[in-house]
């Protein structure tokens, strides 16, 4: 079998894509009309057993808008635009709530959201009526809260309360349509306290630059770059500890002229938030990278912190653990049981997920499968701290789904808690969990250090004494006989050239001066340096410690690394040589080559040190490794500048011009290569079009 690189599939693929039909591969269903998936450590969607299967759908509701599950009473509240119904666990309507105000029947204008307190009081959002209605469990209205009043509320839009939650102190959190500042946090008497869950603006370099830029641009453009990052929530869920889980929607903001896309970009990766009582999102941003272009409409959370969201764009239900790691993704858009038209509310009633579809006017009940139960049980045991039992549960999950990354993480964490760091490291590595791996690694290194303290102490002592010993050795070593110069062998020559290369590092000015005027430096060693540069890149991909190594070993291709390193070097060399012929330069090609190649030495040395060190330190030390890396690059850059200065014999300005032009030249060469490529592509497309047109006409 020939290697992949040998073919040119990538090239051909790009061309053919324009002409070929995309046809779904076999898409037969076995259990459900969707293929439940998970993500592997490289971010690919991989098949998974179903965690939930659709049990049945109940249809025929009148304009349903929201669901609420009251665990204490074991009742489900269904909100339609015209009223509230109470359902039992079988999704049968037990009773309707008749709202009365002072004994008179009261008809809300158009309801969209509901919250029921543990005591049974109802808070419903009358979206069209612009009010929040508070009633007792029998529907007797106790209060009607109109639009909140405050100097902070500047928008002149109508008050359109859409969703509501109430915390244990009676504070109301109201999400209103068209409000981009955050959630209205209202006191029990309906007075405005503040905007809750607003986007916090972090002062970064980029933002400082933006502020400077704002001073220059037009009024309208400035408006678009307003300091506040707009956010509009779509739904809320509150847990017993008064943490609020909120989903973010991305409709356009007419007032500030921001498009949905602007808002999406501003809130990307934070479309689901877990807000602490201060309104700050405590979910790690990085863990939420598994959804794409989602428009979450609701979220529900179970006792273990497992969050389940529904997405109206792809009709997908996502379930993730309390840290935001994906457990199951399933569902889709379609006219089949288990698919949706527009999922708009979700609740978990025990093990059963209820998903309300606004457009199908139905509630679909999803029941947990045997596999799903296994995952949930394992997660629960971990939360309860029963790590030893947890291990066997996670092992069973992995036997049922070897692709289940969360299982490996789970084992890694359980073993970590049991202080079995060897096993923990193994599973964290399988899961691709670098933070977990790093934590276990720190612990293990600590244990190793403690166990071998004597050795470390001796080594440290020897290291401390080494300068002294070196001095002693220098003084007492047998002096070589003077005179009678030894005949130079290949070895001694190599050593001599290498020492020269190193001296160029230490003193580039003198070194490259010698290259220029004394013919010093060796082209073969230069070539060896380029080779070493290439090898360093290979080592970087292959030998860097797991914590710092994001490359996929299965995808590694020495050829592409060679193209990037040696090819890149050749490109820069060619560009520099070309530029030199334009500028008043005295450099020969050999001198240029040696200069460029020798300048790589600091980078190579530092990078090799980083690679070695990356296997010995934990993630917290990453910044030091980065520092060494940057230091190496900086040193190389300085050496290169000095080299160019010396070999070309140019003034400072011209050196700068030389470097800049070299960059431009290299870019130009690349541009021409791409131009040729795309010309070829156009030509190919042209002939292919003619060909297919002919085939079609004949």
């Amino acid at each position, binding site marked *: 079998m020939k290697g992949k690189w040998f073919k040119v599939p990538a090239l051909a693929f790009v061309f053919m894509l*324009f002409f070929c*039909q995309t046809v779904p591969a*076999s898409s037969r269903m076995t259990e459900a009309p969707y293929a439940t998936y998970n993500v592997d450590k490289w971010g690919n969607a991989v098949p998974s057993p179903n965690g939930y299967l659709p049990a049945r759908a109940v249809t025929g509701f009148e304009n349903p808008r929201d669901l609420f599950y009251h665990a204490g009473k074991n009742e489900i509240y269904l909100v339609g635009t015209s009223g509230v119904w109470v359902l039992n666990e079988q999704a049968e309507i037990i009773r309707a709530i008749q709202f009365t105000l002072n004994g008179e029947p009261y008809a809300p204008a158009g309801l969209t959201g509901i919250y029921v307190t543990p005591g049974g009081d109802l808070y419903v959002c009358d979206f069209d009526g612009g009010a929040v209605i508070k009633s007792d469990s029998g529907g007797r209205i106790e209060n009607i809260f109109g639009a909140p009043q405050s100097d902070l509320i500047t928008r002149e839009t109508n008050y359109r309360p859409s969703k509501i939650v109430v915390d244990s102190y009676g504070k109301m959190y109201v999400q209103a349509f068209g409000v981009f500042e955050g959630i209205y946090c209202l006191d029990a008497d309906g007075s405005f306290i503040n905007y809750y869950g607003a986007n916090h603006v972090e002062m970064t370099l980029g933002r400082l630059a933006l502020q400077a830029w704002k001073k220059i641009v037009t009024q309208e453009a400035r408006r678009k770059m307003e300091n506040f990052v707009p956010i509009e929530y779509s739904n809320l869920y509150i847990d017993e500890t008064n943490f609020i889980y909120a989903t973010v929607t991305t409709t356009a903001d007419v007032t500030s002229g921001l498009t949905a896309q602007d808002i999406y970009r501003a809130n990307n990766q934070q479309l689901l938030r877990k807000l602490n009582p201060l309104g700050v999102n405590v979910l790690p941003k990085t863990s939420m990278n598994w959804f794409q*272009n989602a428009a979450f409409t609701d979220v529900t959370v179970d006792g273990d912190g497992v969050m389940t969201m529904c997405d109206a764009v792809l009709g997908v239900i996502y379930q993730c653990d309390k840290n935001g790691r994906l457990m199951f993704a399933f569902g889709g858009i379609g006219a*089949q049981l288990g698919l949706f038209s527009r999922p708009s509310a979700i609740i978990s009633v025990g093990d059963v997920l209820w998903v309300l579809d606004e457009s199908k006017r139905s509630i679909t009940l999803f029941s947990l499968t045997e596999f799903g139960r296994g995952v949930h049980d394992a997660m629960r045991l971990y939360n309860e701290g029963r790590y030893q039992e947890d291990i066997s549960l996670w092992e069973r999950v992995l036997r049922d*789904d070897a692709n289940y990354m969360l299982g490996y993480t789970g084992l890694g964490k359980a073993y970590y808690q049991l202080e079995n760091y060897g096993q923990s490291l193994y599973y964290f590595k399988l899961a691709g969990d670098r933070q977990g791996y790093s934590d276990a690694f720190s612990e293990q290194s600590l244990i190793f250090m403690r166990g071998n303290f004597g050795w470390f102490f001796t080594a440290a002592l020897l290291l401390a004494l080494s300068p002294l010993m070196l001095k002693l050795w220098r003084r007492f070593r047998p002096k070589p006989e003077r005179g009678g110069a030894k005949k130079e062998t290949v070895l001694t020559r190599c050593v001599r050239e290498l020492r020269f290369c190193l001296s160029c590092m230490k003193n580039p000015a003198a070194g490259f001066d010698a290259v220029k005027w004394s013919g010093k430096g060796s082209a073969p060693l230069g070539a060896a340096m380029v080779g070493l540069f290439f090898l360093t890149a290979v080592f970087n991909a292959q030998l860097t410690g797991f914590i710092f190594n994001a490359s996929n070993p299965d995808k590694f291709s020495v050829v592409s690394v060679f193209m990037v390193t040696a090819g890149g070097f050749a490109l820069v060399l060619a560009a520099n040589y070309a530029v030199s012929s334009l500028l008043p330069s005295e450099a020969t090609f050999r001198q240029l080559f040696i200069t460029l190649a020798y300048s790589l030495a600091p980078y190579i040395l530092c990078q090799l040190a980083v690679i070695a060190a990356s296997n010995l330190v934990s993630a917290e030390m990453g910044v030091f490794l980065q520092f060494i890396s940057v230091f190496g690059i900086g040193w190389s850059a300085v050496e290169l500048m000095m080299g160019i200065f010396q070999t070309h014999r140019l003034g400072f300005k011209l050196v700068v011009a030389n470097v800049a032009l070299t960059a431009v030249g290299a870019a130009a060469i690349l541009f021409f290569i791409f131009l040729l490529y795309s010309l070829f592509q156009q030509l190919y497309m042209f002939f292919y079009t003619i060909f297919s047109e002919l085939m079609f006409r004949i």
Partner: protein
Amino acid sequence: MKRLLFALLAIGFAVSAGVVLRRAVLADDSAGYVRQSDGAAAAAGGGFHKALEKGALTLYADFSTGEFYIEDSRSGRTWFSNPEGRENDWGSGFNLQLLNSRLLIDANVYTEPEAPPVETRYADFASNCTAAYKLTDDGLIMVYDFQRPQIMVPVKYSLTDTGLTAELLNGEVVEYGTSRLTNVSILPSFGAGSPEDEGYILIPDGAGALIDFNNNKSSADKLEEADVYGFNAGTGDRTAASTEQYKSKKTLSEAVNLPLWGVKLNDDGYLAVITGGAARATLYAQSGGMGSGFNMAYATYAYRDWADIRMLTKGFEQKQESFPEVYPDLANNYKIEYTFLPHGKSDYTDMAEAYRHTLGLGQPLPNTDIPFYLDVYGHIVKTKPRFGIPADTVIPTASFSKAEAAVNELTDLGVRNIQLKYNYWQRDGYFGKLTTDPKPLASLGGEKGLRSLKSTLEANGGSLFLTYEPLNAYKTGGGFWVLSDALRTIARTPQKQYAFSLANSSADSRYDPWYLVRPQRIEKFFDKYWGNFSEAGYGYPALDSIGDTLYSELASDGIKRDEVAKLFASQLEKTGGVPLMLNGGNAYAAVYADHIVDAPARSSGLDIYDREVPFWQIVFHGRVNYALNAANLSSNPGEMKLKALETGASPMFSWVFENEDELIGSRSDYLFSAGYARWAEQAARDYAEINAVLSKVSGETVTAHKREGSISVTEYGGRLTVVCNYGGEEAEYGGGIIPAKGYVVIE
């Protein structure tokens, strides 16, 4: 120049003269057709006249419109071409057309010069359609002349001993204008159920599903475009353009495996089997309340199928365009055979009985040990760096000796009749070239290992099936050339197939696109392979794809879909004499199989359906051995046992024996729970339990079946009943207690 103009004029004249002549030939009474306005028909008078009679059936027709009714003297039931009481119905627009027409057509019509044609619907009862009739020895031919699109469509009705046959005379359709006929729906409201009737519509979607009469669902739930035998890959990609469809690439569905539908109407009912042109038919159904008060099901025949291709505009932008086929299929008349079921015996089990009769399935199987399907995956190929260069690497996942050891172990555990399906047993078998020369992979143990496995299996009472993929060519080479051998679009460009990402319905960049084999070339490759395979005698053939994939080529030199189905059948016939295993349950192939794995286990669960029934299984049980999906890859493995008992299916397990970890990140990553060690004992236990029940009735048909909530009841051969409870709590049935997730056998 003048000469050219003259020539063109001459050709134009000749063509129009030909058309006029042809129309004259068909429409004139010289061919025996009578128009209502003509003397003869006027003499007969308006209203209904006895037209046909056979056995217990008499057909009365109104020759002016083609409306008719059939009296069945056995049941006393009258079947109407259009439902009684439709005058008072509230339906409008298209629904009104459905209720009142015998024939609905779609035609691609040029409405304005220079503008592209528009597909438009016409009904036979509209004022611009005239009907002529002819009575022949065996039937009544109605010719409908649609003056607006200028198309004449002849339909022939005849009676059989048990029902009615309606046939479109494909060859005699005349398009005397520029319009082209695309779709034909015959008798869309035949035997429709009124709002007062009780009953259901059977749709053989996957395993099968029922639509209750008057089920109070929304008109958005109507069953539309349920293609018989599923998606035709030759029609291109209907999904690329619209967002709505684009999303649906993510979703899965079952296909209509059997070319039929059934209607139960109070105590009567009919089964309609499409016996001609089935592969171009699409099922439609609606329950009362969805646009009209009536419950009806019908099929639409694609006289010309549409193909979608992506084209480049002048500005090199992609554009989706649809084209109808140039030539219709004149070799296969579209034909529906309606069978009127006996009074009081019109349940879906009775429909299955009637269909079994139509299919002419073979002898009953003996009542012995049921098969245990062992689905083994021999190897995978993964790209791994070799000396730093990525290269395809073969990783064995089930060597022949390991499989042999497993067979021995299972035999010791009491498993009999092991039918082993060996996938990826040969070189290029794993998403590779189209092999014509079968050779057991050396790294799995070579020919010697395979023969040893075969004899071990035979000692167990089982047999060895070796998988071959005859339709999908994942790599070129081995005699397969893209330009000559790959399936083409209507524009004759090669049609690529893509694997899709599970997350976002875009093509999965990890896998290269591949091709389907051109129908014209299938026989060439299959004959070569089959010759070599039968000569080598390694085992029996297990053919993938043929049982659930049917496509055609729509270009003018292509092969029509019904012809491809026949082609598949003729290939399968070649294997006659040795047992044959197939995947999936499409009717054209299933009748040739001895074993069917991955038989449809579910329906697509469309919103319009009210219940799911194992109709497919009821048809085939006792005649063909089958297994549903593998139990170990199910999310509810415990439920698979109940499912097997309910549907009469044999258990199947998909396994590997080594290098399990390597499956992660490979193209076989869907085998996420295929470790043999985890499942061996459970598999043996499940088999013993299922076999204890089903071995007694493995040759019997299913005589009754019903589902009530989480309870299912299946009666085999009228003497053994299995009651399964899928619920989490114990339930009561017929006075007995059925344990939670358990079953009870009543003999």
